């Protein structure tokens, strides 16, 4: 059992939990994820570790309540126990040797982006962060990002805060204006990551995306998360979750992500009936 040490609501449906997990905290590096199961009947859900504190033996996860399992997780309060957490899983991002890095996060992708922003900043790279969401109250982690970014840009689809438009609009301008960008990191909805990949390919800038494939065990056992990268089948859980954006088959990823959509809706409807 893993105790919830703190809880914070970042946006109406986005929650942040700090959980006691000393062994995982000890080993986590930016880019790693965990798999958790809220209770005995729950799904195993993969979540990126947004932050970790080795001294306190805690990890922080940020998630959007999209389906049954994340809603159930959102019900957890300080002092509650999460049944299972395993990790750290996946490869961490290799951060050495970059001088100027642009990092883009869309929606909850920003939560996944944050540890990388912090990591690159601490490694001494010049960090330009771009975060975006549908509307102002869905913008998360603004202060945290600002703390570890040389520049921070914000975009909202409805123009209620920052640039009126997409994060990719800002990236486009940066690619034109800035020189010396040697890495772009994009995390968010698949269409956004694909748009970024297409854009940076023209400029020949190395680009990393972090994929949110469907997973069951998260340790290389089931292959549910397989995806074509550079013409080869890779397992997101053990070969990723970060990949070279210019090699990822985004159309296939999009398709594979949709396979259980009906069941997710169904179980969400049940949950509404059960008042969860």
């Amino acid at each position: 059992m893993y105790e919830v040490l703190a809880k914070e609501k970042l946006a109406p449906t986005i929650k942040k939990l700090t959980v006691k997990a000393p062994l995982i905290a000890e080993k986590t590096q930016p880019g790693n994820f965990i798999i958790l199961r809220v209770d005995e009947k729950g799904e195993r859900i993969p979540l990126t570790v947004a932050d970790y504190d080795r001294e306190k033996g805690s990890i922080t996860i940020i998630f959007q309540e999209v389906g049954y399992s994340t809603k159930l997780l959102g019900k957890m309060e300080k002092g509650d126990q999460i049944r299972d957490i395993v990790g750290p899983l996946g490869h961490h991002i290799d951060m050495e040797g970059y001088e100027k890095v642009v990092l883009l996060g869309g929606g909850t992708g920003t939560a996944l982006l944050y540890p990388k922003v912090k990591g690159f900043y601490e490694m001494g790279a010049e960090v330009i962060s771009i975060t975006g969401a549908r509307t102002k109250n869905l913008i998360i982690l603004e202060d945290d990002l600002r703390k570890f970014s040389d520049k921070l840009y914000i975009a909202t689809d409805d123009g209620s805060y920052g640039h009126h438009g997409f994060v990719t609009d800002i990236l486009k301008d940066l690619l034109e204006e800035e020189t010396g960008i040697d890495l772009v990191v994009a995390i968010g909805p698949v269409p956004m990551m694909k748009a970024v990949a297409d854009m940076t390919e023209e400029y020949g800038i190395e680009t990393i995306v972090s994929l949110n494939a469907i997973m069951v065990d998260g340790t290389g056992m089931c292959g549910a998360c397989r995806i074509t990268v550079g013409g080869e089948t890779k397992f997101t859980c053990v070969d990723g979750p970060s990949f070279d954006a210019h090699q990822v088959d985004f159309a296939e990823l999009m398709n594979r992500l949709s396979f259980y959509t009906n069941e997710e809706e169904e179980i969400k409807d049940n949950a509404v009936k059960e008042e969860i």
Partner: protein
Amino acid sequence: MAMQKKKTSMQEQKAEERINNFEEVPYGYTDEEALQEAKRCLQCKDEPCVDGCPVEVPIPDFIQAIIDGDVEKANQIIKSKNNLPAVCGRVCPQEEQCEAVCVMGNKFEPVAIGRLERYVADYNMQRGTDKSSKEEIEKNKIPELEGRKVAVIGAGPAGLTAAADLVRFGLEVTIFEALHDTGGVLSYGIPEFRMPKEIVDQEVEAIKELGVEIKLNVLVGKTITIDELFEEGYEAVFIGVGAGLPRFLGIPGENLNGVYSANEFLTRVNLMKAFKYPEYKTPVKVGNKVAVVGGGNVAMDAARTAKRLGSENVYIVYRRAAEQMPARSEEIEHAREEGIIFKLLNNPVEIHGDQGRVDKMECVEMELGEKDDSGRRRPIPIEGSNWMLDIDTAIIAIGTNPNPLLTKNTKDLATKSWGGIKVDDNQQTSREGVYAGGDVVTGAATVIKAMGAGKTAAKNIKEYLLNKSDK
């Protein structure tokens, strides 16, 4: 009384009923049936059956105890060598092991050793007498080993067996398991109707009662490394992490929706209990026309599971002929009875899709040529014989390889080209104090072979630690 030539038959659920549920197929012997079968044993002096058993269960002795009416004693006799009798009685390939060398089998059917083992285990579980006797355990402890720590990685058949033996020597044993549940392949792979999870849980409970500690959700290689285990004071490590990495065919269309590895399909259903969805929240999507590729036990398990989930037409697509199928004949028979359709001598060459979802499997017919390295006749494609099988789900059950996660993250651990850990006859790896056994060494094999390796490793870890303390 005339000699009973055939095995005493075991009652089972009728095929037309069982395809609608996940309950166990064979019911197990009644007391009368067990006694009747036990009396068929010739009590041979040289006990060939014991040699045929990878863990050397004293088979004639436990059968004699059944005849004597002391089923509790029969259980203690089995447990002296085998800590998972209820599991082995169900899933061991006895026909290739103890029963293959049974003297009765020379003229008639061999004694149904597996069924008797299951009977003894179930009888004692139901009465709560399945635990090993405390006095027996205390008596066997080795003073020089008491309190010394050994780590076992993986709570599957190999790890559980090694742990049980090690703790009996007096060692302090901790099992580290990556998943959220114990049992390994017994929990995530073998379906409920063949290996009820309650039975696995009870066997594990008995092992815990011996004093073994089990830590779940620890992925050794990521959460903690083998070097760190040594730093924490563990003096030896046994690796029994199995072969968990699924193999795919490597043909076009394999990443379409509706194509599963058998591991994913079975893990969803067994470990995550998708057959109880939506009470359990993990879904499994299976259509009406399912092709399972492969001819082993896992393929049979996947096909029979799909049938139980309501699929109408379930096919086994296998590239060789019936005689070459690696599955146990009992499993093939059960699958046939349940209406599984066998498309033998066929090999998939491409999976076709419609709007991202699989809708056809293109197969090529095969014929058998000369014998290959495995001693089986090599399947050769018949040119121009391609045809389309109409499907909406495909399950790839062509085997597994060891998961490289642990080996890649462990320094100086020698592996074979396909990823298996190299060991010597004592199950020792290239690293001092590190032993390995089961599927991670052999590639996917049987539960009992893994248990045998766990036993050998435990014995050698004991020797190693005794020698080490002499120095």
